[in-house]
């Protein structure tokens, strides 16, 4: 195979960070090439430079032997480099064909375009109906629209940024088949991911980045997930060890919880029923947007629910707000860190106060309502120390922390309040491997001390790793919990797909 894209000495510095430091690698024709690294390793910056979104400080690229320095994505596209982003850029109110036409410089007439979309989708097994409204499509279908949009430009290199994070396992299998067909026809694919198993199955070669530098290039099929992880992280990873404590009495009982969503595009919760026992870790799997956010809001108390639907240790907490629920020991950590769990411009101390005011008595007793700032600073410091949050101090703004560090802070802030029940949504989303492992270990330890832990996550491997039992949420409905032991990722995936596909749009 001949080299298609040759990258030499690419360097890009941002204030305070050297995002890419002399990165060199090459992609061959018809190859699926993995770019592997933790968050902040430089993957995004590198592909943005290849796609013309970011201009490198130094270094050069050659595409098919000629110098390649795209000043903007349009130029990269003209030279045959296309990219499917992690977050889709589609208009929900328009049809598939209209969306695709919008992205073209010189769109053909509607009938021709529809025919071309059909051709591409049949030849690559990408089931997409050009006439459907994008708003009605599932995440997997939307991704196919994005891929078709790229393929219509007949790219020489297709860049895929974390493509599987929104897919069910079955959709992932479908995607891999498409990518392999493409590669067999000579299209090169640059595949960005931190999911090791995927890369082992799919990719011909892998370039591994750490701290902005290439640390290794390997053939992933010849490696184990563990050895890839070691290259990626640079040291051995602590693996959470699942506890085997006997679950105790029932702490949280949800029965027949139905609720409308606050947001117009949200999902309505339908007849959610489950119970959580002391010392148990219950996982809730599901594709994004199937009611996870609504469930968290209902449990945290941000949305009140009808009497009798949420019982905490036999006490009705449905009509209570977040502070009263915290007082009783029901704590929550939402998915969105900045703007929901934490206030971006406030200091870590102030952010500690947001949820810990009640249980840690950070507001002086009596009706004076004065904040005990020294105690608040101490608590924030305690969280930082206990959860190894890398930050200069408690006065730093929340938004100055990296995603993983802020997540450790947000989860740690709840754990150190000694909750009776802790609900977390996507606890390790966008967090590097080391921080993710630390968070999972902390959650398991918390359960060992007798807390009921509810983990809502789209990461099935994570749920398999830490949960004792799991349910699947799809279209606002929750399946009956079943033990994790003995279940496989495929089983969960089937549940996600079968209940989700028909209900998700409703």
């Amino acid at each position, binding site marked *: 195979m001949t080299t298609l894209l040759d990258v030499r000495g690419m360097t890009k510095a941002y204030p305070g960070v050297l995002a890419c430091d002399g990165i060199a690698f090459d992609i061959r024709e018809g190859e699926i090439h993995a770019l592997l690294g933790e968050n902040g390793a430089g993957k995004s910056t590198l592909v943005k430079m290849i796609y013309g979104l970011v201009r490198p400080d130094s270094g050069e690229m050659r595409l098919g032997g000629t110098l390649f320095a795209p000043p903007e994505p349009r130029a990269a596209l003209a030279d045959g480099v296309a990219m499917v982003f992690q977050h889709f850029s589609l208009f929900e109110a328009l049809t598939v064909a209209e969306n695709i036409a919008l992205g073209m410089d010189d769109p053909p007439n509607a009938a021709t375009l529809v025919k071309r979309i059909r051709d591409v989708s049949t030849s690559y097994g990408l089931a997409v109906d050009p006439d459907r409204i994008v708003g009605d499509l599932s995440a997997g279908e939307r991704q196919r629209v994005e891929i078709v949009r790229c393929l219509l430009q007949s790219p020489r290199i297709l860049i895929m940024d974390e493509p599987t994070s929104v897919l069910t396992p079955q959709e992932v299998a479908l995607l891999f088949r498409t990518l392999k067909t493409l590669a067999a026809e000579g299209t090169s694919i640059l595949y960005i991911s931190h999911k090791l198993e995927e890369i082992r199955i799919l990719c011909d070669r892998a370039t591994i980045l750490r701290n902005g530098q290439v640390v290794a290039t390997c053939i992933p099929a010849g490696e184990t997930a563990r050895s890839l992880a070691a290259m990626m992280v640079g040291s051995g990873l602590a693996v959470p060890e699942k506890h085997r404590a006997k679950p105790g009495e029932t702490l949280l009982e949800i029965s027949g919880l139905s609720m409308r969503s606050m947001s117009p595009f949200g999902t309505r919760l339908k007849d959610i029923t489950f119970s959580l026992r002391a010392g148990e870790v219950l996982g809730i799997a599901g594709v994004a947007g199937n009611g996870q956010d609504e469930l968290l809001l209902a449990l945290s108390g941000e949305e009140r629910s009808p009497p009798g639907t949420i019982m905490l240790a036999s006490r009705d907490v449905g009509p209570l707000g977040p502070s009263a629920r915290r007082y009783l020991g029901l704590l929550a950590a939402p998915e969105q860190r900045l703007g*929901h769990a934490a206030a971006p411009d406030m200091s870590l101390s102030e952010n500690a106060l947001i949820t810990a005011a009640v249980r840690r008595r950070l507001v002086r007793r009596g009706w004076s309502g004065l904040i005990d700032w020294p105690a608040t600073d101490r608590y924030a410091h305690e969280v930082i120390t206990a959860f190894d949050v890398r930050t200069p101090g408690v006065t730093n703004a929340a938004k100055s922390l990296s995603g993983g560090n802020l997540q450790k802070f947000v989860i740690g802030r709840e754990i150190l309040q000694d909750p009776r029940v802790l609900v977390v949504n996507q606890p390790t989303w966008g967090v590097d491997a080391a921080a993710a492992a630390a968070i999972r270990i902390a959650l398991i330890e918390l359960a060992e001390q007798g807390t009921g832990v509810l983990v809502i996550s789209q990461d099935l491997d994570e749920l398999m790793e830490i949960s004792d039992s799991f349910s699947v949420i799809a279209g606002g409905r929750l399946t009956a919990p079943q033990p994790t032991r003995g279940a496989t990722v495929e089983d969960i995936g089937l549940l996600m797909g079968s209940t989700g596909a028909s209900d998700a749009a409703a």
Partner: protein
Amino acid sequence: MLRLEPRPEPSRRMLALTPFAAVLLTMLAGGFLFASLGTNPLDAIRVFFWDPLFDSTVASYTRPQLLVKAAPLIIIALGLSFGFRAGIWNIGAEGQFIMGAIVGGSAGLAVYPAEGVWVFPMMVAAGALGGLLWAMIPAILKIRFNANEILVSLMLVYVAFNILAGLVTGRLRDPDGFNWPESRNFQAYPSAHNAELFAGTGVHVGVIVMAVLVLLCHLVLRNHIFGFHVRLAGQSRQAARFAGINPHVLTALCLGLSGAFAGLAGLFELAGPAGKLSTNFPLGYGFTAIIVAFLGRLHPIGILLAGLLMALTYIGGELAQFMLNVPAAAVQVFQGMLLFFLLAVDFLVNYRIRVRLRPPEDTGAAPGTETRGDTVNGPGPGKSGEEPA
């Protein structure tokens, strides 16, 4: 070539510097304005900003006026600042100011001519209550029907004004006043008079209350859970909800507080400097206080300084009217420009201006073609190394 670039963190220094930059720019633009009116700009600026405080002939009269005018502005702005921080926009402080004066003044007139130390405190309480209740109208409409509080509170200013106009020609008209559309003069009612406490200083009870409120608000914002909730709600509604703050309660508290403060200011003004209710009573303090609140960065100490500055433009404007023959509207133009320039330079807090020395047409492979620099003052804080990795 100039380029705007978002800062990784809002610049604290710019936050403090931009009000001063706005004042300087206002002086500059005001100078041009006066020059075009045929007045020597340096004279005009001296008359506006210097003579009221230091001129040997007029200062003895104008200096006390500074506190008299600043006190209502500062009291109102302090109340507004809580709502503005939380994203609750009370634009109708003028109406609450009027209603405070009407309710507080009516309470005093109701017991006229009774004398006693209880009369004035009772009027003060009634004044605060009047402003509070008037502000509860937009609050309740917002909570119950999600009506926009900006529009409701603003429109209620005109309602309040018409109530005032109706009352001074009706129920509140001075029976001994030869049918003038005015109430009794509180300056002639000793127990109700908000008199100057120290001769020649302009200090009346309202000024003392203002000073206490500045400190109290400062304390509440820093150390009280209510102040924290207000700041949190201003940062992120969702985080505020997560913290357990009820947005309805917060709306009612912020509007009620600003209404009560405006009502207080209205009563102090009525019982003191103004003396009587009439259609000339509203001076626009409720609107000017919005500028004061923002010029003071919604910070109590900042508001104190901004209120004094704004009072100076009132007094300087009056002085300029009869010393330089500039039109009365010049004061409003001045105040308007101040807010305009403040908003204009505000973007420096979150953005910095980058100057590119070479055009970007080269291959992009050459490093170091960009020089960074803030327009106003030295290098920015980009070196802090706190960029999320």
